[in-house]
């Protein structure tokens, strides 16, 4: 819809002004049959007034209809489907939690089956990050599972409300947070599968490093079980614990390790908890976050995830700076620097040169600001162009990840607006490739620089990026802080990961990570369909990306009515 067309709305009163003020003629005609004319005038005066009023209304309607036509207004409801029942099953990560001995998700499926028994004309969807149609047979045979994806109720609701169902059953686990701010329309029935029960959650409250041991303080709001994992530059430990309220896990750990990365996950947890710790208190170095994004909502950009990854831990000081105040700070001993959506001025230039000269690793993310292109130019990287991207899911059923899969998880969808297309060169080493062959993250090893060629957009649709961004940043940090990067890589590289499967086939219907041709790893993200393990053709990518919902095109009908009203006006003028 083109809202700028409504700038013409004030013109609606133009016919009224003309009607009320209307230039009165100054001319007088001495007319001998005046009495006769006066008689006719009196007889038809009201008729003419009504006709003028009608003419005014018709003219206003013409203007209004024209404005609506120019705005290309489309109604949200699809004209094809006006009835039927939609069933939405919340399949987000949190539905993996248990209620008694049964997963919430299973309970949701049972409710959906009950509805299906009573309703013939029903379509079923699962709702995690996006709304996905389900095969009823898969649902009945319990082939459908919850996903490692954050719930995005708003996006799913917007999608299903456009489908024009007369009735929608929304079966969820009862966690209300994801539905905040959503006002459901009539015909929507929310079914709480947990029947109002309070969910148990757990989190890392603190970490203490002692000689040869690590103490992890865990807290929860009820009885729960978690899996924990401690990684360092020399070792990797895993375990499970069950507790209620509070617990302390003491783990013997290799005393030579300089740092630790701690993670917990569990059935009760909404999302995984990360904790990053430098074991040695003297090993205190500075991580600089230079965030140039204009966002006034800090948790909606990458800086939030950086802080989430680093600030809760110990051993790092975070220095968040804006360019105007950072002069004189360059003597600080930085361990790592982040330049998010950088500007380009003398300070930034000085900063970049300083980091490059000191061989301090730099992470640069692209954005709307001009600094990204300028820094790339400084680093000798050519930008071929910028691609507007609506959704990477449509573009990329498969990620190619030659480097990172630290926790062996399926990566979530990444939503971005722009992707900078980089000219391949010998100095550039891709870290994450898109299946189209474009690097989304690449490294310049000689200069110790990481470049993210895209940026998260500024609404909640970027939320899933947290799950890839946080471990990604930790990985980059771990790899860059010390010279013994190779050793770390040896301990946590994807090649040792359990989920890695040699892929000889061209298609796979099982979600997971696959290795092809030794280095390339493909993630199949859609468990309901077979996914290509080869890159899509560029033509298909283009078609998929350009598909948009258009809805019922009201403007075409208003254009027709504009014509009819113009005809009516000419009839009235006669």
């Amino acid at each position: 819809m083109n809202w700028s067309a409504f700038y013409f709305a004030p013109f609606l009163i133009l016919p009224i002004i003309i009607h009320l003020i209307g230039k009165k003629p100054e001319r007088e005609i001495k007319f001998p049959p005046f009495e006769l004319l006066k008689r006719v005038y009196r007889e038809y005066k009201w008729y003419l007034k009504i006709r003028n009023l009608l003419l005014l209304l018709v003219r206003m309607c013409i203007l209004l209809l024209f404005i609506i036509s120019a705005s290309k207004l489309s109604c949200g409801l699809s004209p094809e489907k006006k009835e039927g029942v939609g069933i939405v099953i919340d399949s987000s990560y949190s539905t993996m939690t248990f209620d008694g001995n049964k997963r919430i998700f299973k309970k949701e499926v049972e409710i959906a089956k009950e509805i299906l028994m009573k309703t013939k004309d029903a379509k079923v969807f699962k709702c995690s990050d996006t709304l996905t149609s389900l095969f009823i047979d898969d649902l009945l045979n319990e082939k459908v599972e919850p996903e490692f994806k954050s719930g995005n109720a708003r996006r799913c609701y917007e999608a299903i409300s456009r489908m024009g169902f007369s009735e929608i059953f929304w079966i969820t686990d009862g966690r209300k947070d994801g539905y905040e701010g959503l006002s459901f329309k009539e015909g929507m029935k929310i079914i709480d599968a947990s029947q109002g029960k309070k969910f148990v959650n757990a989190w890392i409250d603190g970490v203490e490093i002692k000689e040869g041991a690590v103490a992890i303080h865990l807290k929860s709001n009820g009885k729960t079980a978690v899996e924990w994992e401690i990684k360092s530059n020399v070792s990797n430990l895993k375990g499970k614990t069950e507790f209620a309220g509070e617990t302390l896990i003491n783990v013997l750990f290799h005393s030579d390790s300089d740092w630790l990365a701690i993670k917990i996950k569990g059935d009760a947890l909404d999302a995984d908890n990360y904790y990053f710790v430098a074991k040695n208190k003297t090993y205190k170095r500075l991580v600089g976050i230079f965030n140039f994004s204009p966002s006034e909502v800090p948790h909606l950009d990458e800086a939030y995830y950086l802080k989430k990854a680093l600030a809760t831990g110990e051993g790092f000081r975070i220095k968040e700076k804006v360019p105007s105040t950072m002069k004189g700070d360059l003597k600080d001993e930085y361990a790592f620097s982040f330049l998010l959506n950088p500007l380009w001025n003398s300070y930034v230039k000085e900063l970049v040169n300083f980091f490059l000269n000191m061989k301090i690793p730099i992470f640069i993310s692209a954005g709307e600001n001009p600094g990204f292109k300028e820094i790339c130019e400084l680093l000798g990287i050519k930008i071929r162009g910028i691609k507007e991207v609506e959704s990477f899911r449509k573009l990329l059923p498969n990620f190619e990840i030659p480097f990172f899969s630290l926790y062996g998880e399926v990566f979530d969808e990444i939503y971005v607006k722009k992707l900078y297309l980089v000219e391949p060169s010998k100095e550039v080493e891709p870290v994450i490739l898109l299946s189209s062959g474009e690097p989304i993250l690449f490294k310049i090893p000689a200069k110790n620089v990481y470049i993210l060629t895209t940026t998260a957009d500024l609404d909640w649709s970027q939320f899933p990026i947290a799950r890839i961004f946080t471990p990604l940043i930790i990985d980059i940090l771990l790899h860059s802080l010390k010279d013994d990067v190779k050793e770390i890589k040896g301990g946590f590289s994807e090649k040792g990961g359990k989920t890695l499967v040699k892929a000889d086939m061209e298609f796979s219907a099982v979600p997971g990570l696959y290795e092809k041709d030794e280095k390339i790893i493909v993630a199949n993200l859609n468990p309901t369909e077979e996914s290509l393990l080869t890159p899509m053709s560029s033509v298909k990518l283009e078609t998929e990306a350009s598909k948009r919902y258009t809805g019922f095109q009201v403007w075409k009908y208003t254009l027709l009515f504009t014509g009819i009203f113009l005809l009516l006006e000419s009839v009235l003028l006669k």
Partner: protein
Amino acid sequence: MNEQLHLDEEILSKAKGLYIEARKIKGELLTGHHKSKIKGKGTDFVELREYTNGDDIRDIDWKFYGRSEKLMVKVKEDKGRIDLLLCIDDSYSMDFGKNNKLEYAVRLAGTIGYLGVSQSDRVILKTFSGFPEVPPSPSKEAFFNFFLALAMIKPKCSIKPLKFLRDVNALSKNLKVLLFSDMLYEEKIALEFLSSLEGIEFDIIHIVADEEREIAGFEQAFFKDPEGDEKILVDPHLLNRYYRKAFSDWEKNLEEAVTENGGLYIRTTTSIPIYETVTNYLTRLGTRR
């Protein structure tokens, strides 16, 4: 000729023009087509009437003068001659139209008057306003005074036709009245006027300007009463259809009223050539007779 007449070059020229046109039209008409019902002097004595300026002094009844010291003329009747009273409506309403109605009436009266005089009728010219006062035409030679008087006619304000009737009744009984008017009076006055003409032989040449029948040619404007201050804002495009019908109805009603009162009704428009109107009139006159 009245001394009020101011004979300047313009009037003289106009009078000549009217005379030439009258002669031309007469030449074009068939000779003998029109025969007068009454015209001029007769031999049979009918009555005495008061002497008026222009009367032949040979008609004065000197005996009666000896008895009463009043100058009276003997009115004699010749059944082949009549007194033709050409009466022109010179009210403001006649001063309208691209082809001016009053101008048209003057030209028409000039032509018909000339025809009358040519056949030895006595032609009398009167206007509703009474100006200029003209004596009946005594002879063909003095008839140019008639054209001079016609040339001097100008529109006058707020004239009531009923006043004019009083003067008409004082004239000879062998009178034929030929009225040139647009008849734009209030309905009541018009009907009263027509019924007052009962007993008098009268013809009405109803003169209409083209712009009066169709108002679509005008832009939106204030239409004003030419003989008053009242005005109304009219969009002629919107009202024309209804006005045209009302005007047509009014014309029909007028014709009926004239006919009912024994008159001959001739409708003409200022765009119609004088020759055609005269021919039409004479034809209708012959048919009627």
